[in-house]
């Protein structure tokens, strides 16, 4: 059993040879004509923007540039890869995720986290007041201790 694709049918090379009875010396597909016109307009616009005046030579150069660019673009497209697909793939190339070389975050540090050995606990009701006064007394030596951290303090009597 011979099986084959239908692709041949869709590979009709639609060319425009030129106006009737005036055959151009080249054969270009319709798509090439389309691309060429777009490119020509684009180049002309760029020339105006850059500040090149409209004249014979600027137009001639634009024409040459159009031919070169169009030939380049049409060499990239075929029936297999229509212009739209090539453009899509170009966009996809641009938007694909890249490898991230710079690391985000870096080493984690817990330096800024306060750590207490014990959690605060509820005290019996009677001693609460006493404890509060004791705490206010104790605060002073605590602070001092912090200031001289690393130095051994003599044991208090």
């Amino acid at each position: 059993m011979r099986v084959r694709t239908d692709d041949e049918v869709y590979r009709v090379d639609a060319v425009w040879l030129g106006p009737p009875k005036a055959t151009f010396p080249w054969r270009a597909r319709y798509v090439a004509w389309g691309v060429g016109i777009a490119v020509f307009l684009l180049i002309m616009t760029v020339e105006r923007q850059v500040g090149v005046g409209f004249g014979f030579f600027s137009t001639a150069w634009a024409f040459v540039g159009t031919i070169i660019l169009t030939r380049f673009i049409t060499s990239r497209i075929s029936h297999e890869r229509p212009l739209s697909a090539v453009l899509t793939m170009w966009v996809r190339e641009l938007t694909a995720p890249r490898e991230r070389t710079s690391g985000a975050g870096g080493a984690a540090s817990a330096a800024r986290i306060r750590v207490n050995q014990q959690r605060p606990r509820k005290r019996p009701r009677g001693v609460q007041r006493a404890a509060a006064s004791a705490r206010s007394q104790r605060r002073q030596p605590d602070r001092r201790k912090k200031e001289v951290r690393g130095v051994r303090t003599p044991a208090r009597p």
Partner: protein
Amino acid sequence: MFGRRRDRDRRSAAQHVAQHAAAAGQDRKVYSKRGRRLPGEQAVPSYTPSIAARSIDGHLLRTGQEVYAWYKLAPQRWSFRSDSQRQDLIAAIAGQYAELQGRWMHLRVTTRPYPIRMWAEAHVHNAVRRLPDTPGTLSFDDYMVGEQQQLMGRSMAEKEVYLGVQVQTRNMMDRAVERAAPVLRKVFPDAVDAELVAIESEVDHLDQVIGSAGLEGRPATAEEMSWLMHRSCSLGLPAPRNLPAVPGAPWEPEDLASFTDAADFHQEPYSPTVTVRGRTGSNAGMKRHVAVLTVGLMHGLQIPEVDDPWVQRSDRLPAAVEWSARIYVRRPEEVAGELQRQMNKVRSQVRHYTDEHELEPPQSLARQASRVLEIDDEMTSGFTSLGTRVRSWWRLAVSGPTEREALRLAQALLDLYKPKVAIEHPEAQYALAREFIPGEPLSSSAYLRRGSVLWAASAVPTATAEVGDRRGILLGETCTATRRPVAWDPWMAQELRDASGLTAMVAGLGAGKSFLGGGIVYKTLRAGAHWTLLDPSGPLAALCELPELRPHARLINLLNAQPGILNPYRVVAEPLLEHFLDEDDPERAWRRERALAAATRRRLVLDALTGLLPYEVARLPQTRIVLLRAVRTVGGRPDAHPGQVFEALRRDASEHHEHAVVVADFLDEMRERMSLLIPEQDADPYREQRDDRLTVLTMAGLNLPKDGVGREHWTDAEALGVEMLNLAAWLTQRSIYERPKDLRKGVWIDEAFFLSEVPTGRVLMNRFARDSRKWNVRVLLSSQIPADFLKIQGFVALLDSVFVGRLDDDQAQADALRLLKVPVGAGYEQVVASLGRRPGGARNATERDRAPRQFIFADGAGGVERIRIDFSGPHLEHLRNALDTTPDALRDTRLPAEVEVSAPRQDPFARTEDSSPAAASSDGYPDDYDDELAADLEVGLVDELVDSAHGEGGNRRTGREGRA
């Protein structure tokens, strides 16, 4: 409280299930992630998967826009089928595709690896009662290490093919409902499930279409969906060693993170590969470069006849190839319009050339116009829808640890498909790689392939080359489309598939029969089997000399054994009552079996004695009559012997008395030569019991007739040889009844051609076929000529597995294919002829052909494949040397002498069942005439009676009376 609960559990199952279902429904309602917001949950950022898929419910995968139903397709055998069968398969698949008009399909081919280490695990687990290690020799562990090293890095990967079919596109309402699900679930829970409920009938229809013959797809299970998603989201990475647990509930978007977080893709602009980096699990930190290719232009292919199915072809690559194809089945009206446009285009071009410019139009335009007409004709003719058209994009992906490696594989793939199919390597690798993930949209329309459904179906991605199993001994590897190791467990058929244990091994001289058989015996012995080998010529005796087998092996040269070892009355085992305890009526079954054994003995004696008589005498009808009568007189007791038949002949009192005496004289004359058949007075060669793992029976020096020589031209010695061989085969058969039923036993009868030469051959075959399953026996029968087996009636039906090696004769090749149950005349004869043939240039080489031998192996479970026998590991070198039967004048002559010395001469043969009651006297047989008659019928004794009744009336009655 617990007690009461247990009580409740014990209630009727139906009620329990109903309760359970209700509870599950409630649970879901209450504890669903969406249905309930926990305090503080507002702060949790919402998650949107980075892939298009949004949820998976059963086999339905929902993206934002579509619902796809995923199916796992069944593997299809391709090799060794006839072209018409293959065409039918393609047409069936094409028909299924055609039914899916207007739908998108996503075909995914992936692999599920089965590494050799997993085989080793299964094999060790399966090796029950394995051979104890002998100190100083290759231990079982070393042997297993050697086996794995030989196949290092290889995998018995299994190809898996999934097909996703678009069920429906989702409308705005569906999406809105999904968005509002958290609220809706509280207010109006039915609305949330309404979407899936609405498409239920359509899904059922798809299930039915995909499930019919051809694709044979079944809805993918949750585990399979998980596997597919994993393999696609970590494309090209090695398979994860352990998958996350599969939830019982549907996958919500948040759950999909378990797939997408396993790996990430990235690429440089216009780089030839995309890099996939594993992030979690066993692949963490692993990098793979994936080259994604696409199928370009394609020539016409002759699919079943000349070319492989074009997707299956990629299996030839020594690395796994992932496929992803997007197929859209077009509606005929749509295609018709497009064809019309193309036709107009062609016409206008032709006009443009000829009318406007007066130029010759290119030939291609004419060709295209005719092709348009052809397609139009295909689509409108006939009543089948095989002309339906598809648009499709076929992508392939190969991966390697480096970019270079991936590109090398890509190049290999390009070369593989040359010149008929062009494989392209496009840009936008990342976007193409995303296409492999179920639910992702097509990334670009480039490389669109159009064709008929027949063309799409002829890709047959499900075609595989599978043979053997995954726990048995390693035989070698397949050598057709795929290279994968072949393992075969000879007892799997009996233990799991309820099939017979008969295996035929057919190959010409020097095609590697004894090498293959010896390897199977050696490896299964290591794994705990018990073997009895009948090897008339004797080269397999070398197996007994292998140091690790020597303590457990015994070699018996039957020609030197005790007289009476081949006593036809003894080689048929006496059934024991305890073996029938699992029957409905053990007593009756046992009696029936004993009657059958007795009838078999009589038949065997009759055959043996007839075979020993000169052909002219044996042919006379009187000879049969007198012999039959004498055999009946002696009966079928296990302690009788042929000598008693001679006496009975002399005592014959009928009208043929004279002839009987003549026959007795003939036989008496040969008495010295048949000493093995007649035991000496008071001697019982079966007295001593031994438990050997390997028993090799040889008959070195036996005279056997040449191939193709008719019975009438055999010499006395040759006739005797064949009879003795037959009795020896019965002896090996007997050995299986001496061991426990469940024990894995094997019997290998080499030179089994005689089975078709003696009438009892078929009886023996039937016994083997019947008992091999019940007694867990693998019976290997090897011969050089397949016709020997085909001559035995009904043999092919009894066969389980077949090995066919190289055969040169045309007829033999066709016969071999018949044994394999492979179509004859479809060109496979050539394959049989070319198995392991050396390329022509090496014909005159003086070096020996040491290339591994090839066989066609049918495993009995549907797989038929060409395999290469590979025992080439360094740990098996001693085995290879021992099995090397090729003569070599340069080899030192030390070995044979040693074998002779170590062969235990006059080794009494093991085991007796004398202890069984009532075995000794003929009175032990009750008058179970029905049983006896049935037994006679089964072994064909009645045929004899009817035959001889032609010559002489009423002798059957005489026979009965004589016995009485």
